[in-house]
């Protein structure tokens, strides 16, 4: 406090200024006395000639350089004092701002962490992602994942890039009893080195390990190492059982290491993979390739070099590499899924913040009008207009900063709950935190807000007509002032309309989508991925018998009504798109119609509750040695056979079989892509084929993909434990993972819409509340100032109803203007939502009407309260106020 006081009190130069002017006045007065004036008159004349001492002092202070600092401190002190003097006003303003800035800061924290920050590797701008690129395009585009042999060739030839590769995998860790399915990646030697990371313990894979036939080795992920081995460093060099084979632990991944934003359990050397596709340049599942630019090399140089290598390989391997080259692009985080949602929410939070600003601005304005006399007094005492404006802005900046700090505090606590409610997993979640960027942005926004809502009241600072405002006793209200008040209310209402209509649209969409028939019965169905025993995946017959065993045992579990195997589950990630034709003959791959192919066992229809429309579904008789059969859905029946009888006809699906496939049945359509987008999906046709007819050479791959689906007569999660025990197999190492109910999957399909609705609803509710507070405050203030006028009106014979109408009409004018403006803006918001959120349909008048009606009703109520008060004025008391 003493420091404040020191700065606040007159400094030395201030005293000297006083003394200097005093000396001047005395000397002048003496001279005048010598000329014969009376001493009193002499002093008066001297003062008159010098000008108002305060004005002269102000001018002198202005001509000093450090002026602004002194003023600033003074203004700051004045502002804090002013805010403390009006606790009710300050509390409402601070809360409003904290809310607005808090919401915006939470959203920006997340946008910053997920969308804006560079990758969390050292020197991320030197990293690149590599892909194959063909001169032709299919509907998947012309960029492809690398073939492993191509990767090896490019890696060997490139001078400008240090390259590494990795590939998805997964497998069973441990043996009987403690077996579990773990996430894994096959990585090339030097992956960590390319990323400029070093393993937390042990070492990277050696080039010699990254080859077929080398001794099996693993690197463990941090999380897995902690979970299964209690972070024991002695695990290094020991052997663990992975996929039924012993592997030596050579390293522990760096702390916080994520590959493609996933914390992986186990890493194995990519080169040791024995899968046949690893040696194919043509049709292959592909690997991910990343690279770091070597010292001095630029991306353009690397690109030129890749093109050169590409054309060399094209000459060398014309069959597979013709028209094929390689491209490098800066490595970017994969955040496309959440980008539009996050920007939408940041936009909504921004609108809320604007409403909060408008609210505080109108509060400040009310205060500024009430302070007109005070400001006039200050002008009379020598303050310049610029000085007053600056002081007003300092006040609102202090308010803005205080609100901003509360907002940052709110955000610090608000980010975690937000992420908790986020549907699914948020990419880069580890990088979401309040950092200097966020705080800087929050402080900047706070100051900008302070300026925004402080400017209007500040510009009201009187310059001319001083005497008028002093004489008026702070009671007049010019038309201009009323228009400004009205303007803020209108802006608030309009912004609230935008949020309300958006929330309404989302709510309507969610209702509509939830009511859609998914085409199957999602109640009481459990689906879970399953890994067969690593010892069984060696030969097809073993795998088939293991699967049969799983089905038999699962059927015995109490509560289980039906069991089936299925590769691609509706509304879950993953699908298999195959081209089909209704006539035999050669067709280019692009011209074929595409359908979703699903491999199942006979009880699938019963498990999923899918209706059979014609013919039959599969039976145990559909085996490898019987005629290949398929069952198609209504959509495919319509497309392939134009509404004619489908059962008994044939279809040709080149990727499955060269011969014709017999259609034995037609079933109802399932909304595989979820309710929101299935109707617009490019591939909607579906067909099913028996798992029993999958050829031997593909059984291993299919076994990796198969899930077990179970219909129960009790809550499905309750059968998880008995089911897990039942399918463990004779070796005890068959495990279930990714266990979900169909209801969960269906819910997750609409999770994004639901989450958006929740937040937009929250923001819209707050916006409605703020807008009502705003219109209430302004109306209460405006009517309060008109009390004497109302008194006169009553005295002249106006009834209470007349006054009520008068005030309501004024309020209604603002509301109507706000709604009209808001609907225009909402139209744009709806277009945006339609574009960014799946399933949102074009304008729905009922929704529009309902949401605007809600706003008008709430706003009218907020107007009604002060209007009613005005209508009950005691005319005598009102007139006496004058």
């Amino acid at each position, binding site marked *: 406090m003493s420091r404040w006081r020191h700065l606040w009190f007159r400094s030395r130069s201030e005293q000297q200024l006083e003394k200097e002017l005093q*000396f*001047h006045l005395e000397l002048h007065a003496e001279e005048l006395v010598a000329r014969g004036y009376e001493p009193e008159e002499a002093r008066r004349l001297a003062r008159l000639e010098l000008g108002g001492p305060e004005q002269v002092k102000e001018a*002198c202070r202005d*001509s000093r350089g450090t002026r602004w600092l002194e003023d600033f401190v003074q203004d700051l002190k004045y502002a804090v004092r002013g805010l403390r003097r009006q606790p009710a006003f300050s509390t409402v303003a601070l809360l409003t701002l904290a809310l607005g800035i808090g919401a915006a800061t939470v959203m920006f924290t997340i946008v910053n962490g997920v969308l804006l920050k560079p990758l969390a590797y050292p020197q991320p701008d030197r990293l690149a992602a590599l892909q194959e690129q063909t001169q032709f395009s299919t509907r998947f585009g012309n960029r492809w994942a690398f073939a492993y042999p191509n990767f090896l060739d490019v890696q060997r030839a490139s001078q400008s890039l240090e390259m590494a590769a990795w590939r998805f995998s997964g497998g069973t860790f441990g043996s009987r009893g403690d077996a579990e399915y773990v996430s894994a990646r096959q990585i090339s030697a030097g992956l960590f080195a390319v990323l400029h990371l070093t393993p937390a313990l042990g070492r990277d894979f050696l080039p010699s390990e990254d080859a077929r036939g080398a001794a099996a080795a693993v690197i463990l992920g941090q999380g897995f190492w902690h979970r299964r081995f209690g972070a024991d460093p002695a695990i290094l060099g020991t052997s663990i059982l992975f996929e039924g084979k012993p592997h030596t632990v050579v390293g522990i991944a760096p702390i916080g290491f994520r590959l493609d934003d996933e914390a992986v359990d186990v890493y194995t050397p990519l080169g040791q993979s024995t899968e046949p596709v690893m040696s194919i340049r043509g049709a292959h599942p592909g690997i991910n390739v990343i690279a770091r630019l070597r010292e001095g090399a630029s991306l353009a140089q690397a690109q030129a070099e890749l093109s050169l290598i590409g054309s060399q390989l094209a000459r060398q391997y014309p069959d597979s590499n013709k028209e094929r080259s390689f491209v490098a692009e800066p490595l970017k985080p994969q955040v496309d899924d959440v980008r539009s949602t996050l920007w939408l929410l940041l936009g909504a939070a921004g609108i809320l913040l604007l409403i909060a600003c408008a609210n505080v601005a109108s509060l400040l304005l009310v205060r500024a009008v009430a302070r007109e006399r005070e400001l006039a007094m200050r002008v009379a005492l020598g303050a310049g207009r610029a000085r007053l404006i600056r002081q007003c802005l300092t006040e609102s900046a202090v308010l803005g900063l205080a609100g901003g700090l509360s907002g940052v505090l709110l955000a610090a606590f608000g980010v975690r709950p937000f992420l908790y409610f986020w549907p699914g997993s948020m990419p880069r979640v580890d990088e979401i935190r309040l950092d200097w960027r966020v705080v800087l942005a929050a402080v900047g926004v706070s100051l900008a807000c302070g300026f925004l809502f402080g400017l209007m009241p500040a510009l009201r600072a009187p310059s001319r007509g001083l005497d008028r405002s002093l004489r008026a006793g702070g009671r007049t209200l010019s038309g201009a002032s009323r228009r400004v008040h009205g303007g803020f209310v209108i802006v608030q209402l309009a912004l609230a309309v935008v949020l309300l209509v958006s929330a309404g649209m989302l709510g309507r969409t969610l209702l509509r989508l939830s009511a859609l028939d998914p085409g199957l019965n999602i109640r009481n169905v459990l689906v879970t991925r399953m890994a067969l025993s690593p010892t069984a995946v060696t030969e097809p017959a073993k795998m088939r018998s293991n699967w049969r065993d799983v089905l038999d045992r699962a059927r015995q579990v109490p509560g289980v009504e039906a069991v089936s195997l299925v590769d691609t589950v509706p509304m879950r990630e993953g699908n298999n798109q195959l081209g089909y034709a209704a006539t035999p003959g050669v067709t280019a791959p692009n011209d074929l119609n595409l359908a979703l192919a699903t491999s199942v066992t006979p009880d699938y229809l019963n498990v999923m509750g899918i209706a059979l429309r014609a013919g039959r579904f599969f039976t145990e008789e559909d085996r490898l040695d019987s005629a290949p059969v398929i069952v198609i859905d209504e959509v495919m029946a319509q497309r392939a056979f134009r509404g004619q009888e489908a059962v008994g006809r044939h279809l040709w699906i080149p990727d499955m079989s060269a011969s014709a496939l017999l259609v034995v049945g037609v079933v109802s359509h399932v909304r595989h892509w979820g309710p929101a987008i299935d109707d617009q999906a490019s591939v909607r046709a579906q067909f099913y084929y028996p798992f029993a007819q999958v050829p031997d050479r593909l059984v291993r791959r299919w076994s990796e993909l198969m899930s077990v689906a179970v219909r129960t007569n009790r809550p499905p999660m309750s059968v998880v434990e008995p089911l897990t025990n039942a399918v463990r197999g004779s070796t005890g190492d068959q495990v279930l993972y990714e266990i979900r109910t169909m209801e969960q999957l269906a819910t997750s399909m609409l999770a994004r819409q639901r989450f958006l609705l929740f937040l937009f609803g929250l923001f819209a509710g707050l916006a409605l509340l703020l807008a009502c507070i705003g219109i209430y405050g302004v109306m209460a203030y405006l009517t309060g100032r008109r009390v004497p006028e109302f008194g006169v009106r009553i005295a002249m014979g106006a009834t209470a109803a007349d006054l009520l109408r008068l005030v309501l009409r004024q309020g209604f004018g603002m509301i109507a203007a706000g709604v009209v403006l808001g609907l225009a803006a909402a139209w744009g918001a709806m277009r945006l939502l339609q574009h960014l959120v799946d399933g949102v349909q074009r304008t729905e008048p009922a929704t529009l009407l309902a949401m605007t009606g809600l706003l008008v009703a709430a706003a009218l109520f907020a107007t009604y309260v002060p209007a009613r008060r005005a209508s009950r004025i005691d005319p005598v008391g009102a007139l006496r106020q004058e």
Partner: protein
Amino acid sequence: MPPKSDLPQGTLDLLILKTVAMGPVHGYAIGQRLQQVSRDVVQVPQGSLYPALHRLETRGYLAADWKLTETGREAKFYHLTRKGRVQLETEAESWKRLAEAVGLILQVPEGAAE
């Protein structure tokens, strides 16, 4: 007595510098001397004298000390700094050039410009 005219913009600083150049002097005396020297032709509003003095002091053209006057009162006496002297010379020079130029134009008989 001819009517007093306003001071041309910017000349007040020059006049103050010239006045102070004659020796340490306080604010009131500067006002008086300006009035006398310019024989009551130029009106120096006292209200603008002090802001000008403070401005020149802030810029380093003037320095000030508190000294006793002949009558034994403490007053703020201004004197010219080295920087102020240079400034005075350049400003006086440019003022003279301007005055000469204006004079030349005014001496040309009317119609001679054709």
